[in-house]
């Protein structure tokens, strides 16, 4: 059992979202950084999509009301347990009365707190993710507030307790192959691979060059539903009238103003704006972890490369999971 001690907002219970009701207009939702959520669960021996806390404004503080295994993944939030600094992507034993604080951002944006067994909130439409816009799912369909008490589910039978001193995983930033751009090598810019979408050929040549050759800044008008970017104006060769159609997280829409929007976890299920591209799923966590005001750069990729990136991500998670089990068995 844990108690939320302090939060300044936007912290929610999330999992990998709900994909069974998309056709009824229900957003997928779930963690903005699905990889970080799955990583925390891998370190604890939980099912991949066990519900965890997503935090994005700091400081965020919880108290353990009972002894519990816990993992903090995602953004480097300079986390500490009773004042003892925790490394990034770290799993540890917490004792009753101890306080976990995510202090401030060092890098990234979204941090995840996983508990052994996963957070026990009711499953709605196949998921425990908080759907803020529709106020259901997660903890009472809302952001967490100080005083809220969350329970962990019973751990799976094969999930073993953690060794003293805890352990962690190399962060995805260093473990996974980073995208490369022909036009930028600045380490301060997040590179993101995309596949051209249906209306890509309808944009003029300057716009198609601008898409890949200039950095795009993430504006403060960004949310869990989409990241609005600022940069050059993207223009169509001629006006395009389209009916609304299905869209998914990753789709880069271009409204008439010419400033692109990348759909993220809480994306609407349909939209009518022309789509210039789709950020590949294995790079969406990179977008989520890029802060408002920072720059991203698009890199055109191929279907084969996108599949390879997806496989590399899955292999990393599987490797963490299996080595975690070996290591814990070894220390028993």
């Amino acid at each position: 059992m844990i108690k939320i001690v302090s939060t300044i907002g936007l912290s929610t219970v999330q999992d990998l979202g709900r994909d069974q009701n998309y056709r009824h207009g229900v957003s997928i939702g779930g963690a903005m950084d699905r990889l970080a959520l799955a990583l925390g669960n891998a370190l604890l021996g939980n099912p991949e999509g066990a519900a965890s806390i997503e935090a994005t404004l700091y400081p965020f503080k919880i108290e353990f009301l009972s002894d519990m295994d816990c993992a903090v993944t995602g953004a480097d939030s300079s986390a500490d347990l009773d004042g003892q600094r925790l490394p990034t992507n770290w799993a540890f034993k917490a004792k009753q009365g101890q306080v976990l604080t995510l202090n401030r951002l060092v890098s990234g944006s979204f941090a995840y707190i996983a508990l052994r067994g996963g957070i026990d909130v009711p499953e709605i439409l196949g998921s425990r993710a908080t759907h803020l816009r529709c106020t259901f799912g997660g903890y009472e369909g809302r952001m967490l507030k100080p005083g809220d008490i969350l329970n962990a589910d019973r751990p799976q039978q094969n999930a073993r307790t953690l060794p003293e001193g805890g352990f962690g995983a190399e962060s995805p930033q260093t473990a996974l192959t980073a995208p490369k751009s022909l036009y930028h090598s600045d380490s301060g810019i997040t590179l993101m691979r995309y596949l051209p979408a249906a209306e890509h050929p309808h944009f003029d040549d300057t716009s198609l060059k601008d898409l890949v050759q200039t950095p795009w800044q993430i504006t403060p008008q960004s949310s869990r539903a989409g990241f609005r970017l600022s940069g050059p104006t993207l223009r169509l060769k001629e006006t395009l009238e389209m009916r609304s159609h299905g869209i998914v997280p990753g789709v880069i829409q271009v409204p008439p103003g010419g400033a692109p929007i990348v759909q993220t976890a809480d994306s609407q299920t349909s939209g009518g704006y022309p789509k210039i591209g789709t950020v590949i799923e294995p790079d969406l966590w990179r977008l989520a972890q890029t802060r408002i005001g920072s720059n991203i750069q698009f890199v055109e990729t191929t279907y084969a490369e996108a599949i390879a990136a997806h496989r590399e991500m899955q292999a990393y998670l599987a490797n963490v999971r299996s080595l975690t089990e070996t290591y814990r068995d070894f220390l028993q």
Partner: protein
Amino acid sequence: MTIRSKLEQLKTRFLDIVALAKPSNSHALEIGESTLPFPAGVNGSSRSANSTASKKLVARASGVYLPTHPDQSMPAAQLGDIVTKGDRLGFIKMGPLLTPIVAQIDGSITNICCQSGQTVEYGTVLFEIEPKGTSL
């Protein structure tokens, strides 16, 4: 004074300093970001007489020894640090996993026995720690 003789003089003084600084059983000296092997013939100082009091901290996992977490810029522990039981002194990397090297006693680090990036096995001596209360 020629530059050559000046350099010779500096080298002699350097070796003297190194001999004074060298803890028992160490093979290299870290200066800033570079690591210099101790020159042959340089013997440890009087500290080595106390080395029997030091406790060896051995690896509890096999992998690559990392003094610094890959997301950090500073090593978890350095020579001479005062440590408390339970402190993290470094990491052993096994594939994508990072396992901690945890101090088992209170004391001070008198020797770091491995180089960053070195492959270590279960039982490899990583640190020598002089228990608290033992005089130097």
